[in-house]
């Protein structure tokens, strides 16, 4: 019969009060934990997607839209740019590599991207089966696309214009799947990759007249250019050069991502603050419970002292009660945080949005128990001290 067991016996004796305090603590920890988990998962997901891309170039428009569409494929593109600009930019000595993306169609809500195999290398993609395209109308599926559509090597499908499912279908242009990628944890998993020729072919149709063909080929466009710098110096001059000397727009993923985070961050801060308020409420509720316990249990405490309990033991008993609640509230809070993240993850998968690993548990999360402990300790401090100082003789005499 240790002090811990004694403390637990009192918590068990008033289950509703205990439940209330555990729920309040769990809500506080859960809310704060949820924000941390989502923040971290979204952040690392975006960072993975943007790695190796120094500059996104596309049609004029909102730079954030350019980045969202060009890197994360979460938004529609700002427009198209002439194909000639690719060669022009690739010749620039400041540029190491240019990866073109032609974005026009989708397949069951997943973008079909006309690009070069460099795009797969950018995310260190590896083939789970098959190989890259070597001709038009051959497609490589990202791992999420493959698992969602349950399609594999040799299967055939048609794209539809735009992103919305059920949009106009390019029924006469059938893609054949020649490769499926392993999961990379990046945006690559959610894309269908094809040759740019394929995208042009789908929209141009099979043109046989050489004259007409020459005209159309001269008007070919791409949507986005992903640029890797040859030298860090490029960061200073290249974006400005593109923005002022061409009718294209350049956006720096690092800068735009930070800007985006600052905007989302306000929302995260609000939720975090809400979690803090709930935790403060939990501390107050706990304090009231313990303070009441002092009066209800004055005689019990006196009896414990007659049995030989020291002042410090009485204080420790009350502190232990608070700490048991802190541990329970903290653990349930972590569970709640992951549960909420799992719901959000499920929802984001439905939205074909950024993947979140809701059940990735890190030891750093144990730090989330700290606010729970701090709240419990603050709440228990005064009651414990009062209990320890109580005049036992007077308490006993009053009852007798």
């Amino acid at each position: 019969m240790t002090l811990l067991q004694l403390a637990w016996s009192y918590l068990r004796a008033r289950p509703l009060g205990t439940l209330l305090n555990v729920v309040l603590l769990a809500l506080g920890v859960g809310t704060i934990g949820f924000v941390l988990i989502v923040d971290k998962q979204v952040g690392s997901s975006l960072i993975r997607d943007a790695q190796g891309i120094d500059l996104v170039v596309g049609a004029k428009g909102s730079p954030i839209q350019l980045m969202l569409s060009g890197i994360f494929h979460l938004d529609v593109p700002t427009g198209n740019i002439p194909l000639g600009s690719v060669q022009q930019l690739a010749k620039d000595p400041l540029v190491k590599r240019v990866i073109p993306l032609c974005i026009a169609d989708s397949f069951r809500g997943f973008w079909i991207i006309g690009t070069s195999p460099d795009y797969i290398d950018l995310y260190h993609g590896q083939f789970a089966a098959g190989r890259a395209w070597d001709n038009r109308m051959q497609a490589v599926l990202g791992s999420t696309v493959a698992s969602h559509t349950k399609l594999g090597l040799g299967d055939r499908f048609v794209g539809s214009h735009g992103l919305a499912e059920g949009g106009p279908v390019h029924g006469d242009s059938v893609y054949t799947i020649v490769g499926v990628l392993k999961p990379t944890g990046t945006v690559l998993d959610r894309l269908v990759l094809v040759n740019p020729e394929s995208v042009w072919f789908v929209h141009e149709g099979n043109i046989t007249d050489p004259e007409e063909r020459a005209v159309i080929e001269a008007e070919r466009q791409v949507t986005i250019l992903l640029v890797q710098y040859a030298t860090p110096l490029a960061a200073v001059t290249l974006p400005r050069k593109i923005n002022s000397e061409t009718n294209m727009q350049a956006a720096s993923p690092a800068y735009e991502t930070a800007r985006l985070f600052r905007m989302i961050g306000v929302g995260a801060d609000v939720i975090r603050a809400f979690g803090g308020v709930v935790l403060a409420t939990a501390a107050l509720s706990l304090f009231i419970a313990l303070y009441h316990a002092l009066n209800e249990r004055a005689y019990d405490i006196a009896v414990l002292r007659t049995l030989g309990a020291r002042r410090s033991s009485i204080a420790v008993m009350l502190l232990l009660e608070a700490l048991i609640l802190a541990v329970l509230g903290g653990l349930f809070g972590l569970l709640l945080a992951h549960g909420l993240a799992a719901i959000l993850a499920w929802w984001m998968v439905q939205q074909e949005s950024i993947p979140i690993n809701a059940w990735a548990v890190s030891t750093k999360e144990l730090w989330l128990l700290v606010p729970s402990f701090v709240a419990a300790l603050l709440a228990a401090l005064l009651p414990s001290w009062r209990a320890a100082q109580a005049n036992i003789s007077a308490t006993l005499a009053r009852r007798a």
Partner: protein
Amino acid sequence: MIRVEQVRFGYNGGADVLRLDEFALEPESDVLVVGPSGCGKTTLLHLIAGLLLPSSGKVVVDGQDLSELPAPERDRFRGRHIGIVLQQFHLLPTLTALQNLLVAQSVAGLPVDRSTAHTMLRALGVEDRLNAYPHQLSVGQQQRVAIARALVNRPKLLLADEPTSNLDDEACEAVADLLLSSTRQHAVSLVIATHDMRLKAKIPRQLALPRRPAQSMR
């Protein structure tokens, strides 16, 4: 077992509520502390238990001057050497009968020993209610468990504060017999503070405290 010398006690330097020049109790003997209400019977019991310290004078229990012990040591000394039975026979309501005995061992810093606790509950005739909570026990059973708890650490002295004041004649007799028989059985000295005249037949030796000094001066 107990030696009280020139003891004065008053709250916060106020008038003395208790004056006792000399009192001694031999091992394995019993005494009834009697006197009018407010004469300081409970105060004397609390002084002997080390719950209060005298303003002046000495209280020596089992050879130990209680004033010489630092507070934590005094608590431990009380837990190990002095058993206390209160008027309400108050048991901790969230613990079973057995756990009430185990917690007494634990807070006195003694090893938790279930077999001793069992033995003591058996000696008081409540071994079949080990796992009952206090509210599930009859008043008589609660009294027995409380006495078993007071004796579980094998004290040499048992202090009882008005143990019979709310009881009818039959229950009074039963509690008195229980206290006397169990203290005899375990070789424990017994001090009962009471104004219950019915006990005088059971315990011949009496310490009569005079009316409170402050009151008599009035």
